[in-house]
């Protein structure tokens, strides 16, 4: 076991750029509020509310696991998990807020551009959970409205029953080889925030020409970034062009025949941002849940059981994982990404048909 993502291991430059860009894009505002603890008063008030709704794009079993851990720690508060792809959650929240519906208490999205929009709309509560004070400064909003509750890598992968390690592609460039035609699965940026972010980074790094070639590979197109690992494990496809690393890690641990590929050109890095909504119907339970989500306990569960990467300096990662610092990641730029949403979708549809 060794700590990951502490400043000493050297954070990928991309992460720094990501948060710095996010910070720069926002108008200078008041300082973040002081970090909040789970005080007995807060716990009592949260219990009086009795429930909290958590809109997330984390894979459903892990999201429910986090909810159950919270329920066990604070009996009497039910967690309602609303799991959907980040892009669909975004659409949902926009529709709900457009109609003055305030269902969501805590929200997290794998598309960092989303929190920028919500913050600009004034929907996010300035609230800093206790542990977020320990976060690297570049992984939290200086105004204290959001912070990265997880880092997800969009990795490649292959089925180990069907391919030997030496046969598997090593890079994005390998995946457009004709021999993989009809053998690749990938997720869709219209549904998944992870894939939206990854698509943007890939297009920036490798150019759209690469995605145009990939589009001719007769890929199997699924929606969520949590689906390709499952299709890979079932043997439906041999190679995964994109999908979440954390599920690959847990599935591998459970004995599924899958192996991760960190492409040589770099791996898209996706920071999932969590926030408490200003108009949360259960404001106290929302804050208590956010404190738990960013706590060492919550982050450790997500890491150990869920395979996620964490920014919490106290989280120790099982030793069998490739250390984060050793992975070459792509450059993140949520501000540019938000501006390019429509163009990215249009180009993608042109090359992949949907």
């Amino acid at each position, binding site marked *: 076991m060794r700590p990951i993502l502490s400043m000493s291991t050297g954070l990928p430059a991309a992460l720094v750029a990501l948060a710095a860009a996010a910070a720069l894009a926002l108008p200078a505002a008041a300082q973040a509020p002081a970090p909040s603890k789970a005080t007995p008063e807060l716990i009592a008030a949260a219990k009086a509310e009795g429930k909290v709704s958590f809109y997330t794009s984390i894979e459903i079993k892990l999201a429910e696991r986090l909810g159950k851990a919270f329920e066990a720690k604070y009996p009497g508060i*039910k967690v*309602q998990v609303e799991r959907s792809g980040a892009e669909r959650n975004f*659409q949902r929240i926009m529709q709900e807020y457009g109609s003055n519906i305030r269902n969501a208490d805590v929200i997290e999205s794998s598309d960092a551009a989303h929190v920028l929009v919500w913050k600009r709309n004034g929907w996010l509560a300035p609230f800093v959970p206790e542990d977020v004070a320990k976060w690297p400064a570049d992984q939290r909003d200086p105004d204290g409205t959001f912070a990265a509750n997880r880092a997800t890598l969009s990795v490649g992968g292959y089925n180990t029953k069907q391919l030997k390690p030496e046969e598997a592609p090593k890079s994005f460039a390998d995946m457009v080889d004709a021999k993989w035609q009809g053998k690749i699965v990938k997720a869709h940026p219209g549904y998944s925030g992870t894939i939206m972010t990854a698509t943007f980074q890939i297009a920036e790094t490798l150019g759209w020409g690469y995605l145009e070639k990939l589009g001719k590979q007769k890929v199997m197109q699924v929606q969520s970034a949590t*689906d390709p690992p499952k299709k890979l494990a079932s043997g439906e496809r041999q190679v995964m062009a994109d999908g979440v690393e954390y599920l690959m890690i847990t599935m591998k641990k459970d004995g599924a025949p899958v192996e991760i590929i960190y492409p040589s050109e770099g791996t898209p890095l996706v920071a999932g941002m969590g926030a408490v909504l200003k108009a949360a119907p259960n404001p106290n339970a929302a804050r208590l849940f956010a404190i738990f989500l960013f706590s060492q306990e919550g982050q450790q569960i997500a890491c150990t059981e869920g395979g996620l990467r964490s920014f919490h300096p106290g989280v120790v990662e099982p030793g069998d994982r490739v250390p984060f610092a050793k992975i070459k990641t792509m450059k993140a730029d949520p501000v540019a990404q938000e501006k390019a949403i429509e163009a990215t979708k249009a180009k993608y549809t*042109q090359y992949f048909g*949907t």
Partner: protein
Amino acid sequence: MTTALPEAQIERPAARTGAPAPAPRLPDMTRPVLVMLAIVLCVLVLLPIGWLVAYAFVGADGKPTLANFVRLASDPAFSRPLLTSLRIAISVALLACAVSLPLAWLVARSDMPMRRTVRALVTASFVTPPFLGAIAWEILAAPNSGVLNQWARALLGLKPFDQVLNIYTAEGVTFVITLYAMPYAFVLVTNALERIPAELEQASAILGGSAWRTLRRVTIPLVAPALLAGGLVAFLQAMTLFGSPAILALPAGFHVHTTKIWSLFQYPPAPHLAAAAALPLLALTVGLLVLQRRLLGRRGYTVIGDKSGAARTVSLGRWRWAALAYATVMVTLPVLLPYGALLKTALVPTVADALSLETLTFKHVRFVFLEFSQTRHALWNTVLLGLLTATLGTLLALVVAYITGRKLVAGHQVLGFLATAPVAIPGIVLGVGLFLAYTRPPVVLYGTLWILLLAFLTIELPAGYQQMRAAFSGLHPELEEASRILGATRLGTLRRITAPLLRTSVVAAWCFIFIGTIRELSAAIMLSTANTKIISVVIYDLNESGDLGAISVLGLTLLLVTFTVVILVNRLTGLGRKVLAAS
């Protein structure tokens, strides 16, 4: 409201002998009820369509424009999905007719063994939500991991990755939609076949017509209207279905019309374009319904005389077993195989595992019922909405069908049209229309179960109305007239005379609507929010992330609930299997 007559006499008007005792009359509530009804129909149907039209002719800047339509016609990203949908829908209609005509004939008119079982199983395929069928067929016929492909490879000695079936193709989508659109044509044709009086066919036989000639010249022309109607329903289903193509066409890399409309609501949403995209579909459907009426109207198809005894059955002789084999295939594909696949997937760790004692697991069952926070309230919402929609919808359909069937008021055709019109509106588009209509003051319903109830009522009204309309046309008005002459009000007559006589049809319509509500996904996906989730939406969300084990458990639970309710309702109303068979 009450009638002026003692109950026993009303119940059995034929047995009445003496003159009615004079009794005080209550004011006839017919007119206020009619006005109310017209308002309800207008709110249900015209409001969302009105919003659609209003949106279609307006640009994102709020100014009137035709730019939406220009873009739809000129951009292949829109015209291609529409053509794909048309191609699929035409294939589905032809296929559904081609396979259901022989099956209906075998069930209704031959001595094929196990006819009743076959009929019940086809009914089961009607109960199956098409999106669930599509997911089950993914499990069965995904090109590499599909169970059927694995069997075929083992059987034929093929190499891994040799594909026999590929469900992720336009043909696959067509096939799966046909499976669950076929029961409509089957039921319509079966009922028509049973209504043909034996005399007509006997006459043909006596006049020297061979069995084949009788079939061709007498039987088929008599069921042609039903077949045409069945084909039309299948066409419309295929054109407006969202779930199956959303599940199968995305992996295949193409859009159909409905999934394209849905994609227009992704951020940033383009509701104006979506509204415009819906209107050609509306026009097409209205055109088809008018055409159907013209075609049937010109040829008199009324069967004269009463239904006389059992319809003629034809002895198949040695062909009985061939017939049974055909029927077996036709119930295996939509019911037995998919249910089997779901059951297996529910009980093994991952979809690729084979079912054995070692792999048997209840982790998906445990997840769905103990860990998944959506299950309980989504199940409750689903059942509640199903019961409410079925009850209110049947009531509404009954009254509208009564008015149009008996031509009670001037303009009754308009009521009939309003009750039929929603058939032309894809659920997803209706969802959009309702969303536009009820997310602004004075009535904000978005985020409540009410908006889903409105959506389901509107969507299911045509089915209920057609059912009740058909029932009324088979009911002689003399009995009602007798009641009216004896002093009962219209509504009193409807309640005391007509409704009991229509009991079978009423229960059938109720079941129709209940099942339809449970199956609904396309409007629900637009309108449900975190607190108003229903099972179909939960299943769709789970499919997004490929959680097939949980989907299987939830899907089977949904089927179980549906069958239980339908059977209970039939038991409670004392109709037993009759309605089940008829629906």
